[in-house]
């Protein structure tokens, strides 16, 4: 089963449960009905906004912790130089 099919299956199941509760087909045992009526319709929008906030936070954190490595660059240039000299001595035609 591909990932898309798994995700679609889970999504259908949760949407079905959500709609059934919304249309009062399924009861919720421990909550007052009017509280359920206030909460339920906004759950999808809450999920969307939460996902948006999570994405932004994740991107922001990723950008903030993105390391630069100038040392690696300078070391690499030096090593390229060493390599060229060494290989020229060993008989490889360089540049």
């Amino acid at each position, binding site marked *: 089963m*591909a*990932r*898309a099919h798994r995700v679609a299956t889970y999504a259908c199941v949760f949407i079905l449960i959500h709609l059934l509760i919304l249309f009062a087909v399924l009861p919720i045992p421990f909550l007052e009905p009017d509280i359920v009526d206030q909460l339920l319709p906004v759950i999808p929008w809450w999920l969307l906004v939460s996902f948006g906030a999570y*994405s932004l936070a*994740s*991107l922001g954190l*990723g*950008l903030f*912790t*993105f*390391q*630069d*490595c*100038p040392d*690696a*660059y300078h070391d*690499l*240039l030096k*090593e*390229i130089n060493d*390599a*060229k000299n*060494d*290989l020229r001595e*060993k*008989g*490889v*035609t*360089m*540049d």
Partner: protein
Amino acid sequence: MNPFASVPSLNMQGQYNSPNTHKYSVILPTYNERKNLPIVVWLLANVFREHELAWEVIVVDDASPDGTQEVAMELAKVYGEDKIVLKPRPGKLGLGTAYIHGLDFCTGDFVIIMDADFSHHPKFIPQFIRLQQAYNLDIVTGTRYRSTPTPSLSGTRPGGVHGWDFKRKLVSRGANFLAATVLNPGVSDLTGSFRLYRLPVLRHIITLTQSRGYVFQMEMMVRARALGYTVGEVPITFVDRIFGESKLGADEVVGYLKGVWSLFTSV
């Protein structure tokens, strides 16, 4: 008597007085890498010699017009015909098939794939090997986004990039976030191509992959995870484009999105 110094032990793959008797093959697909190939091979040879590892480099050249194959033959004279193996191909046939072609000639039991343009530095290979041996992993991949290895390992430095401006970093993080959310691959750097594979694992995955380009690297990792192979990550420093500029066009973005979607629906 030291058992590692006995004749059969010394004639094993390891060829060194060390407990690591595995042989590591590096597959380098090249196209017009006449200037870079000798230096990459020099760096690889130094790293392997310093850490007393049996190694070989398989150069898969796609009929480069600039003399890459000649310089590969010269390197074979310097380092040994058994160490630098040149396996050319008649034309530019793509990265995936280059790996498949190279795999046919591997005599090692681990395969390392990397770029030949200095963006991947061979000095990280011993860290890959250490992580692989510590946890008996099937695949170890280099990551530019983390500062510590997973699973944990001591003696490593944080990863990073050099030569990327803010926009490039933003695009990179965004693309990675998208792929991570949609595919949940379990690795922090999905498009990276600096990896150590166990040979049978690579053979198995590569027969299943169907995409081309850099989506190919993503697909290999996603398929590996789906098949249950164990993956570890080591932070690497990525020095981008020592020579020349890279441009990220709309075509690439569309290609990437299509690649992620096709992986989502097929794996």
